[in-house]
């Protein structure tokens, strides 16, 4: 599955397009990491636990988007966009969406 966040796949032609495919996950980090992050809030700096959290979520979400595209019979997803939102206290949603197409 070819993934790209530009409108085309350079060197190939889009022969058929389907529609919007998307993948999303909602993840939470356990409370120990939340408390450490609370301390980090005082000194500042990268919140490694949350960075990991978002990275895992992103892989997961892209994986689901690819599965939707595969179920359509597409071989590429173009114009991919990401959106992160906080769904509830301590939980973040990562949402990836793009257009499923067949390229040759």
């Amino acid at each position, binding site marked *: 599955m070819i993934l790209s966040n530009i409108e085309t796949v350079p060197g190939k032609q889009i022969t058929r397009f389907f529609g919007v495919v998307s993948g999303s996950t909602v993840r939470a980090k356990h409370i120990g990491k939340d408390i450490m992050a609370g301390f980090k809030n005082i000194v500042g700096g990268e919140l490694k636990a949350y960075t990991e959290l978002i990275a895992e979520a992103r892989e997961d979400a892209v994986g689901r988007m690819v599965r939707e595209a595969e179920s359509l019979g597409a071989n590429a997803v173009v114009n991919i966009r990401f959106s992160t939102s906080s769904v509830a206290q*301590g939980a973040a949603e990562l949402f990836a969406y793009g257009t499923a197409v067949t390229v040759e």
Partner: protein
Amino acid sequence: MKFDPSLPEDGINVSRTNLLREALLLVGGVAAIAIAVAFAAAVAVDLVVPHIPIELELRLFSGWFDRAAKTDAAVDPREQPLAKLLDRMVGHWPECPYGFEIAIWDTPEPNAVALPGGVIAVTRGLLEKVESENELAFVLGHELGHFRNRDHLRGLGRGIAFSLLLVAVGVGGGGSAVELASLAGQFAQRGFDREQEIEADRFGLALLAAEYGHVSGAAAFFEHLSELGGPGEGALASYFSTHPLHADRIQALHGTAHEMGWALRGEQRPAFSTSR
């Protein structure tokens, strides 16, 4: 570029999960965490408390209860004899570092409370219900036991740890999770509270035996409490009340008396006042 109107497979973005199993897992998990933290805190407190110096404890608790305040304007005539009885009991505790004071509370429910700092409060209801000096001596001895075991500090330590746990859960999870954690934590702590009461009983028995040569006062006191009707007999009630079921305490009483060779029956002196 041709348009293909196919629809993707349904449900890729939703994990097939059995909600009830998830609920069981999560509730069990959080309750287990809360109970584990409560236990760890109680054990830590029990380890630390014996090393805290008495002076520190007295300074910490001074001023919590105004020793001079009396609930009644008129001084209860039973106060003096009660204070003398307390002195006799304290006499059997030579290493006692506290100075004690008696307070009589004007409430009808029979109760006795050990207040941090050195005040032992007894209710009017209790004074009217006891039928002998021995029973009263046991009640005072039990309260002295709380002081000897530094139970106030233990309670304070556990309370602080418990509050921290609830705050942490609140930050992570929100209202209902706090309720759940609070219930689980209290359930875990009840065991420690009950143990404290039985230990205080044990000290009271020792003082009784030293004063009278036998521990009939304790046996008589428990028999009276059973007649009055204590908290409900259900298993749930016994866990969620701070005082163990009277049957448990009676069993512990018999056990200790048997172990130490103290007689459960003996001559009982009349209480200093059986009427108001």
